[in-house]
């Protein structure tokens, strides 16, 4: 490699190296602590450390569990809604819905919204959060459609086992769906 083809940046001085090293260690501690302290499974030690690191972890977007498909892939969750209009007519819908949300990334945003509502309803989770999101979705639906009220259902879609599919069961088989009522919401006057 001819020397005139490379112009190497000067190496940092010892003081700079020490400062950068300190920042790197602090940053990587936060990178580790984000998922380490992520509820629901987190030790008291992890929780204590999280209190100290939280401003930084939250502030730079490190508060992630990285628990992709963990503990295991389960049923998916959709949000089904029944709108009632002033004239008494009704309309149904659900999301995510591939026919309505394109491209796939947009569909996935809607998918995550229904999954998030389900995750908020987990054991031990404060009920107010799930209620706040359900109300938010309902508020959007009534205002965007002009409906007077909306009934929400969380639709759980189970995955059939391999032997069931080998026996001819389809992924869309009605037996795989369960609807759980979330609530009925009137249109907010605001």
């Amino acid at each position, binding site marked *: *490699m*001819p020397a*005139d*083809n*490379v*112009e*190497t*940046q000067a*190496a*940092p001085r010892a003081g700079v190296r020490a400062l*950068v*090293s300190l920042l*790197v260690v602090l940053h990587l501690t936060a*990178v*580790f602590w984000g*998922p380490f302290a992520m509820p629901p499974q987190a030790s008291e030690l992890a929780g204590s450390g999280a209190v100290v690191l939280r*401003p930084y972890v*939250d*502030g730079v*977007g490190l508060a*992630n*569990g*990285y*628990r*992709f*498909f*963990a*503990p*295991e*892939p*389960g049923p*998916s969750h959709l949000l089904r809604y029944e709108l009632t209009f002033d004239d008494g007519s009704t309309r149904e819908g659900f999301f995510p819905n591939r026919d309505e949300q394109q491209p*796939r*990334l*947009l569909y*996935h*945003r809607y998918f*995550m*919204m229904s999954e*998030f*509502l389900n995750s*908020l309803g987990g054991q031990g989770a404060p009920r*107010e*959060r799930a209620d*706040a*999101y359900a109300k*938010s979705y309902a*508020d*959007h639906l009534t*205002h*965007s459609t002009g409906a007077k009220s909306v009934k929400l259902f969380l639709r759980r*879609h189970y*995955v*059939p086992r*391999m*032997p069931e*599919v*080998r026996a001819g069961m389809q*992924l*869309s088989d009605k037996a795989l769906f369960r609807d759980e009522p979330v609530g009925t919401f009137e249109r907010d006057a605001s």
Partner: protein
Amino acid sequence: MNREVDYGRQWFADVVAGWNRFWFEPTDPATLGMIRICAGAMLLYTHLVWGLDLTTFFGAHGWLSPSAVSSVQEGSFTWSYLWWFESSWALWTVHVAALVVFAMLTVGLFTRVVAVLAWLAAMSYVGRATGALFGLDQINVMLAMYLAVGPSGDAFSVDRWLKERRAGGPLPVRPSWTANLAIRLIQLHMCVIYLFAGMAKLTGMAWWDGTAMWMAFGNLEYQSLDMTWMADWPRLMNLLTHVTIFWETFYVALIWPRLTRPVMLALAVPLHMGIAVCLGMMTFGLIMLVGNMAFVPPWVIRAMVPGGKSGQGRGASAGPRPNSNLGATRSRSTVAGTRPKH
């Protein structure tokens, strides 16, 4: 006693030298430049898609009302400038500005500034859209942050092209320790991601009995390619499940040795492209591969890019070659790279 003290001193000196070599040895910014292009394009696409339903998500009476998002973020230090904008025109104004920033980052124009702005913008959408996020967003902001740390515009960029134009010809490659620092941070962050992704799965029975991949492939809402024929191949599903969890869990160790790194990177492609093609998460699959790119040495990047060797200056093939152990160069001429002599 003296022997113990000598051993302790030597050990400490070795640790310091190794640390300095790992973090501060200058490297060709080619890998960082390529990550900038790919991550910038993904940021641009991600936010173009937000734009399809911008006010539907974030506007007055949007899906994600301020009160709902605040209920989840209570006590958190998550932030977003999008809270200041609710009217349609204001949202669109800042959204278009963000798109311009992401486009500039992708092509590498005023990169030093737009890299910081891109991170601020990406963070703001993540801070505002709680409830509609997934892995893509986590990796997007992670990469945006490290692109702002290093000189991501020093290779394959308009900035570089303009600089050479002003100089009247090709300029030499400029290996820098800050490029190495950014690459190292991405590498270690990827290790943490896979470590926790793997460990979290260990608590799920389906990852042990080998049916987890079936549960993903058999999920209609995720499905983008009908893989139900795999129900006839249960042992294949078991194998895919086991390979996935072993790969994720041991990535943190096996990505570093020269012997196993190519194998781990080669396995990353079918794993993430499988998620992309079969489970409808093309964006997530691709951005994980972009993160893995941090382990590809700069000379490989230059060799793969048409004109990468010659188009970026005569010395562009510089990128000291395979004696780079971890994707970084190993110039012995640098202070940081000098091993202590014993």
